[in-house]
């Protein structure tokens, strides 16, 4: 090794160690545990794919996975749509743009727990929006998703979009600001209506931003834990459960380490299936360009 490379190599030792041990070795460990009968504590009694069989036989797991799919689709499209719309509105050149931007991103600075509690209060059927609207005269008004097993997951979507739209707005705004202003001049000269420019020119140009934002949101979806815990507690029953909460509960509270580990590995597989191709394309693009 060149002498000038010695110090940087040494400096990378802690990070290298952390990366290797705390990321990859830990993943391997969790995978190994998912093949054992571990309950409260890790035990190395290998039982093959038994934990996965149990997992796939569990209705609660499939509810959680189904919820994640539903939540993921609605939350991601919602955030992208709202964020993009807000970004376009701001980019039209409004005065006090900073004020609007600050407001839209304000929820981002709050924790999921805070968001969850705020919305739990807002959606409280007895005292929240439902009651308040009824008080205004609409006696039949019903907005009781929080306590309805078939609707509770949508409250998570609502709170999630409220919190994360600002992130998308920021990303899209940065993208819009990066658009060559000459494109706007050219479109003006050609007499193309503004909405057409957005639909046919700007939006396709921002495709990479859509991808980045979607990937970012997706990784939030899979990790989602705090929000559900604070908002619905996974309930009513397990109706708004998510895999992250399922895993946490089995690992920490239910003494089902092996089953929890199997769930965790499935979460990782889900992420890898979506993020993997993205990262791969990203890296290839980097090398090509």
């Amino acid at each position, binding site marked *: 090794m*060149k002498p000038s490379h010695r110090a940087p190599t040494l400096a990378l030792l802690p990070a290298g160690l952390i990366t290797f041990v705390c990321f990859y070795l830990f993943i391997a460990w969790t995978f190994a545990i998912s093949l054992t009968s571990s309950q409260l504590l890790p035990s190395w009694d290998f039982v093959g794919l038994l934990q996965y069989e149990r997992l796939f036989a569990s209705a609660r797991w499939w509810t959680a996975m189904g919820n994640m799919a539903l939540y993921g689709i609605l939350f991601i499209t919602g955030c992208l749509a709202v964020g993009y719309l807000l970004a376009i509105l701001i980019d039209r050149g409004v005065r006090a743009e900073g004020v609007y931007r600050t407001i839209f991103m304000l929820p981002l600075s709050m924790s999921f727990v805070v968001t969850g509690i705020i919305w739990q209060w807002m959606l409280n059927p007895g005292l929240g929006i439902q009651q308040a609207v009824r008080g205004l005269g609409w006696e039949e008004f019903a907005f009781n998703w929080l306590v309805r097993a078939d609707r509770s997951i949508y409250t998570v979507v609502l709170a999630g979009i409220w919190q994360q739209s600002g992130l998308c707005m*920021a990303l899209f705004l940065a993208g819009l600001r990066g658009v060559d202003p000459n494109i706007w001049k050219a479109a003006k000269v050609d007499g193309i209506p503004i909405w057409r420019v957005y639909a046919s020119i700007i939006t396709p140009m921002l495709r990479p931003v859509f991808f980045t934002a979607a990937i970012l949101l997706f990784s939030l979806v899979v990790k989602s834990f705090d929000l559900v815990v604070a908002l619905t507690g996974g309930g009513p029953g397990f109706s708004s459960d998510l895999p992250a909460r399922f895993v946490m509960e089995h690992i920490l509270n239910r003494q089902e380490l092996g089953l929890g580990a199997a769930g965790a590995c499935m979460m990782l597989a889900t992420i890898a299936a979506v993020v993997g191709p993205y990262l791969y394309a990203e890296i290839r693009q980097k090398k090509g360009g």
Partner: protein
Amino acid sequence: MRRLPLYLMLSIAALMVLFPLLVMLSTSLKPLDEINHGSLFALPQDPTLAAWTKAWGGACISGTCRGLSVWFANSFAIVLPALFCSLALGALTGYALSLRTARWVDMLFAALLIGLFIPPQVTLYPMIVLVREMGLFGTLGGLVFAHTVWGLAFVTLLFRNFFLSVPRDLLKAARIDGAGFLATFWHVMLPLSLPVCAVALVLQFTYIWNDFILGLTFAGPGQQPVTVALNVLAGSQFGQQEYNVNMAATMIAALPTILVYLLSGRLFVRGIAAGAVKG
């Protein structure tokens, strides 16, 4: 006037974002009686800070009735050392990675980057085992370590991409001036990266303060951060729910990051953009 619809839409959107926060504020200023019998939309008729006082100093959480202030202090005790560790390690690692002295350095960076996407649930239990083996489980040190590990990928990414944008000639000039790896880092690169440090500081503060899962798992009893305490307080199924106290507590817990966000202005946006545009 052609812009009126534009401002109208923006203002409605802004109102929708602010509405829950305003409701929260208004609820926290009402007495419990007014909440139970009045409308969510109604403004407090007789604003009182009683709920705030109780939330701060008197509410019972996990058996102690000293309010949120205890947990608030816990959060600061966690955030400050965790911030220092994760920024120090991230800056140094980012700098070393930006030198790209060998192929494996880039590979390490890629490996680290992938870490951004690993759900904490996957590595949580082995981490508990590791921290316990280190004799740090349930201590502040263990929690700080966990935060440093989980923040490493993001902070490193931020610094590495910044340092990569520093002209290579500057590093060469420093070499000719006789500055070694650490001297160059300390005298040249770190002072240059102050804006990035600020971005990392703001975002890491927000992330660590807002963390729930690590605090829940690694903190010892009575040492949990404010988010965990808040969830206990508001999620408690026992006895009469004091919504005004809950709302005041929620605001108190959210206030530091909101303040940091409002005061830091564009840094927050820049950090989010930098974190998202991976390099």
